[in-house]
């Protein structure tokens, strides 16, 4: 069977609400409107207004409320219409949620999921296109997940909801409508993926491509192209930004000796930067070429379609970088 990421997320929420009546969802338009992106479709009808609650447009207020309810022992799912708006509430995510278990010497636990679309969508310009993976991923106390496929969407979402700690769950608007074939196993109501474990989406021997979310698909497409030219790329889907599965990454690079890290967000202090640093630290002597990264351009997101396209990684960018690290093509600086 085939399923979209949207359906994957929706079914995961549905099943976990059925599984544990401590689970509830709050956020803007999650109820009567069925979700701005329809991820919560049908849940209000099924679980009622006590468990699916539309909030005012007050991110700090409802996020704090969610964290407080988690302190108390409930299992809130807080939807941000997009993660851009979570900046209004980020103090609660970091200071109230991530740090409380630690500060209280283990007394408080904070079983909460913060979820919503993250990063670039299409044509929504600078204020609505930021990727927050690196920010949240830097904070001890948080677990930060980013699904690519339906398998990820279901397995990670269900794991996030059952997890006793705060989880930041970074979806991608453009991926919501993507379909994937799913196995029976993935559809099982007890299908959970381990938090902190990356997935090798494709095995290869010449170069390791590391990415997450939408960029995994780009890497897979790049790998197909590269195969035609005789380059065998291993594609790692991080799934978890924090904890970062350094073991899987390093193991792969030790095999391929080459690394290209890919992300859609800004480069400085990004996930790709961390991947490169981690590999350099741990597997320096295995590297046959300088690791590279393909990232969002280091600019706020422009609206115009032509500029927007240049502002995020494209498959040819990945292919070009791979060829460089494989010494297949001499890099040529493009005038700009």
């Amino acid at each position, binding site marked *: 069977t085939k399923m979209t990421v949207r359906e994957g997320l929706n079914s995961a929420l549905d099943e976990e609400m059925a599984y544990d009546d401590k689970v509830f969802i709050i956020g*803007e*338009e999650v109820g*009567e*409107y069925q979700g*701005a992106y329809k991820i919560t479709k049908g849940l209000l009808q099924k679980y009622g207004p006590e468990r699916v609650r*539309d*909030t*005012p*447009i*007050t991110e*700090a*207020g409802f996020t704090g409320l969610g964290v407080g309810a988690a302190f108390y022992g409930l299992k809130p799912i807080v939807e941000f219409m997009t993660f*851009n*708006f979570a900046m*209004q509430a980020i103090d609660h995510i970091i200071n109230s949620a991530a740090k409380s278990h630690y500060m209280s010497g283990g007394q408080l636990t904070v079983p909460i999921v913060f979820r919503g679309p993250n990063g670039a*969508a*299409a*044509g*929504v*310009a*600078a*204020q*609505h296109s930021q990727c927050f993976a690196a920010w949240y991923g830097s904070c001890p106390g948080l677990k930060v997940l980013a699904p690519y496929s339906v398998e990820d969407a279901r397995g990670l979402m269900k794991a996030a909801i059952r997890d006793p700690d705060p989880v930041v769950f970074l979806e991608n608007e453009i991926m919501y409508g993507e379909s994937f074939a799913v196995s029976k196993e993935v559809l099982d109501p007890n299908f959970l993926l381990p938090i902190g474990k990356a997935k090798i989406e494709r095995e290869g021997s010449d170069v390791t491509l590391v990415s997450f979310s939408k960029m995994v698909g780009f890497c897979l497409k790049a790998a197909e192209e590269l195969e035609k030219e005789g380059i065998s790329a291993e594609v790692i889907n991080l799934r978890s930004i924090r904890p970062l599965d350094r073991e899987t990454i390093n193991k792969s690079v030790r095999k391929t000796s080459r690394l290209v890290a890919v992300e859609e967000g800004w*480069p400085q202090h990004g996930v790709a930067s961390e991947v490169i640093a981690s590999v350099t630290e741990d597997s320096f002597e295995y590297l046959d070429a300088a690791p*590279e*990264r*393909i*990232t*969002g*351009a*280091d*600019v*706020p997101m*422009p*609206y*115009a*379609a*032509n*500029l*927007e396209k*240049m*502002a*995020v*990684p*494209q498959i040819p*960018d990945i292919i*070009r*970088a791979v060829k*460089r690290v494989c010494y297949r093509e001499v*890099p*040529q*600086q*493009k005038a*700009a």
Partner: protein
Amino acid sequence: DEKLTVTVPVPFKTHKIDPPSQEVETSKAELLGFFTDMYKMRRMEIAADGLYKSKFIRGFCHLYDGQEAVCVGMEAALNYDDAIITAYRDHCTHLGRGGTVLEVMAELMGHRDGCSQGKGGSMHMYNKQHNFYGGNGIVGAQVPLGVGVAFGQKYNKLPNVTVAMYGDGAANQGQLFEALNIAALWNLPCLFTCENNHYGMGTAEWRSAKSPAYYARGDYVPGIKVDGMDALAVKQAFKFGKEYALQNGPLMLEMDTYRYHGHSMSDPGSTYRTRDEISGIRQERDPIERIRKLILSLELATAADLKAIEKESKREVDEAVDAAKSSPQPEEKLLYDHIHSGTPANFQIYGADRQHVTVKL
């Protein structure tokens, strides 16, 4: 120009302040101006709707049709040294501040002649010269920003005010209350203007606010509720408000208005409200029809005169759409422009593939 006095039918409702008079001074030119401007705005938004559907416009696009009286009434009481800041529903605000239909349309298409050179899109239009500070995409953020502009006006000892506009949904944002308290403490000339169109996206005001009496939500700050479908009432409120704010600091103005379209282009706008509600308001409170009737009843122009104005507006919008379509996309180098206004020495900007594209400025 013929001076006139018109009695606005809906009384001003107030909180901790005496209401302005319902007798509003106006003139033939002003009323014809209202009609012309509002009609043009309406045409422009309808054109945008069509262009969105035919994929000339992408992403978020929030239309203003239905709310035009707020914009023209407000502008009639202000000058360009007064400042305006609003949210993402800003196309008509841009026009009101002296922008052109081409600037709006080209921006919507992401083309070079857009008022932000195509880099901002629907939500990010500005006219710094005329003190229009956008076009802000984050709900509520524009309000403290507007208070900051008002701070600047007072700091420079100018006789001007800032209008900070926000929706009924935004009215619950904490930063509004923070900004209001500061504005009140420091007597800043800011008009907190809630465009109450009665819905956020799909959430009716009473589901998002315990007290949807937005004109009274300033608590210790006075407020006035205004028929936001009546350009003259709006003008009167802002005239009163400007004087008040220059003397006393902030004032809350609630504009009772309505958006005909859905929240944005992805919202049909008909799941959370009835078609009857929409058509009822169109029939009874439409801001353009109200002015048309007034003009005709006062015999300031004939029905044919108004038709001519409409025709002219249509032509202007159609031409602007054509011009916007043929406006080029921004040059690639614009991707790397405007990161900073003062570029540091040896500044480098990375493209997606930094080994391939690194711009040195």
